[in-house]
């Protein structure tokens, strides 16, 4: 199923761009400004706008896009593809064109690649590199003041699929926006990855009527309906896999991560990886960029498990994860900087009532907003100046910390340096 790849010969312009990319990235790393992927990739694309197509096309690539779970799924997919040989990946989270270019621009140039791509950037990146497989997980509202129309993203993906003649799409049938966007592609692998959050997919993306739903599916009077999945999560630790039931265990917690693993395994199958080998390779990943990692926090070294929730859909997933274990204190670290979305009102869509019965501590730039939300949910809690102070007040030696984007990033820097 794999065709031999042509030898790589880059244009002079692209070679120059790659040299600049390496220099800039190294300089930026030396100066301690992050991983340097962004700045190097940006410069390179300015010198050679076609560089992405040159280094990325005609090789074994897969792109992963979604509102939630793309980093984790990319990481799982990279592990699965790693059973075949070297794999490139933008594991630093730089998921726009420059970050993708940086990941692809180091030799060997025929290495496979698992690429996380921002939802809005996916059409540009995928048209350039023409990936073998694209994984589409979910679309929900996130950072509303950046891109406020979920349907617009689905429409962009739909157009993209019609253009990419040789790309297979692995798509989540439980998200109507995703399913609709995947229907134009030349071939689909339908996966039931679940949807905890339906509030952003109530209206038919095709005809704008209200969607009908029941326990197993969704459909519309216009004929749009949930496709029949060939892969689905059957329970905790089990998948329905092309007509058979198979055990499936990974180390990342929660049903949502098993669903991410199912999507990644379905994509890896397109590259010739057996599902058993794929799942085995995924085990051993205990954290993804610090998510699910346990770190010492505060002066008395409380053990804090770091969890990321940056929108209502993500919080509902976290709630399920928190409630699947004996209750520990939970610290909510909540910001509304630009990267988080400046509007914190989405926390009113989260059923915080479900936190009742455990110790709840609150901190972050918008701690007062979170505190009012919890007060109206009648969840007793305390408000703290910072996460370290809150950890000290936790009445257990281990706690869960749920942070949104910038709060998580800052916590990770403070606790792991």
């Amino acid at each position, binding site marked *: 199923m794999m065709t031999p790849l042509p030898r790589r010969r880059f244009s002079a312009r692209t070679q120059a761009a790659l040299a600049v990319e390496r220099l800039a990235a190294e300089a930026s790393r030396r100066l301690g400004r992050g991983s340097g992927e962004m700045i190097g990739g940006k410069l390179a694309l300015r010198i050679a706008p076609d560089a992405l197509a040159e280094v990325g096309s005609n090789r074994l690539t897969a792109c992963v896009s979604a509102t939630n779970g793309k980093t984790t799924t990319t990481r799982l997919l990279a592990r699965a593809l790693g059973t075949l040989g070297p794999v490139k990946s933008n594991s630093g989270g730089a998921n726009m064109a420059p970050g993708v270019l940086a990941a692809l621009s180091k030799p060997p140039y025929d290495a496979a690649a698992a690429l996380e791509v921002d939802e809005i950037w996916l059409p540009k990146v995928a048209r350039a590199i023409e990936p073998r497989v694209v994984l589409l997980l979910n679309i929900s509202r996130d950072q509303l003041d950046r891109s406020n129309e979920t349907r617009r993203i689905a429409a962009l993906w739909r157009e993209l699929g019609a253009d990419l003649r040789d790309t297979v799409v692995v798509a989540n049938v439980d998200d109507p926006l995703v399913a609709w966007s995947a229907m134009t592609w030349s071939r689909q692998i339908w996966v039931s990855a679940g949807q905890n959050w339906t509030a952003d997919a109530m209206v038919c993306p095709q005809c704008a009527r209200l969607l009908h739903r029941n326990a197993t599916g969704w459909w519309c009077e216009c004929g749009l309906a949930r496709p029949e999945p060939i892969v689905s999560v059957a329970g905790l630790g089990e998948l329905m896999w092309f007509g058979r039931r198979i055990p499936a265990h990974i180390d990342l917690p929660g049903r949502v991560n098993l669903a991410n693993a199912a999507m990644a395994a379905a994509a890896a199958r397109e590259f010739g990886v057996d599902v058993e080998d794929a799942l085995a390779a995924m085990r051993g990943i205990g954290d993804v960029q610090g998510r699910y990692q346990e770190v010492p926090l505060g002066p008395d070294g409380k053990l804090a498990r770091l969890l990321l929730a940056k929108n209502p859909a993500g919080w509902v997933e976290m709630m399920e994860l928190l409630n699947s274990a004996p209750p520990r204190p939970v610290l909510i670290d909540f910001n509304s900087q630009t990267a988080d979305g400046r509007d914190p009102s989405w926390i009113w869509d989260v059923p915080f009532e479900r936190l009742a019965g455990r110790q709840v501590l609150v901190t972050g730039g918008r701690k007062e907003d979170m505190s009012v939300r919890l007060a*109206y949910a009648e969840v007793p809690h305390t408000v703290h100046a910072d996460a370290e102070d809150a950890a000290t007040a936790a009445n257990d030696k281990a706690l869960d910390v749920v942070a949104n984007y910038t709060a998580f990033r800052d916590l990770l820097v403070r606790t792991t340096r």
Partner: protein
Amino acid sequence: MSRESATRIALIYPELLGTYGDGGNAIVLAQRLRWRGLRAEIVEVPAGEVVPADCDIYLLGGGEDEPQVLAADGMRRNRSLTRAVSGGAAVLAVCAGYQVIGASFPAGNGRVHEGVHLVDMETRRSFDPPDVPPPPRAVGDIVVEPDQRLGLPTLYGYENHGGRTRPLPGSRGIPLGTVRLGVGDGTPARTDGIVDGKVIGTYLHGPVLAQNPALADLLLTWVHGRLAPLDAPVEADMLRRARARALAGG
């Protein structure tokens, strides 16, 4: 007017008009009644169903273009919201909901769509001549000084909309207030919102009643008569002080 039965709070079409956390307004109203020992019931009206005419307060939130059109058509099909308002019910309509309760608003396709016409307001992308480019989307923190007649403290919120809204000639009602930070209606009068009888329209998300409990209590007294004072929650005072600090000089 004290009552035995629960105050009924209708959340209209939350699937269509619930994109920006405005469902929180229902939670705030219900809790502020319960904390006073009164009964409250939140009635969610799913899209596609008839809006009941027997609720005390009706809430409409923000939403995207297509859902907004669906919502307006659904409410126009039966006139129960209009009947409820003439029967003394109160309305709080936010953002897309505010546009929907007006006479007309812009649909996504560039056309103008008919609203429910509870208030004499109209919304367009722009009221400037066609050769003037339409203004950018209004996105950010908003602070409004309410009309003195309402007896309310400063209103804090967040706005996220592409519309400009103005009263029709000879319209009834008064602006909710004067914009101190942000855009609001986006007209030269620098106002936001409308108060006409017991109907309030505004661009403030937040949710607006979570950040401004006095506005919540104003709505509740309209349908309930006098209410015992309620200091709770103290968290809301802390939030208002934090917003005032963060937005000072803005």
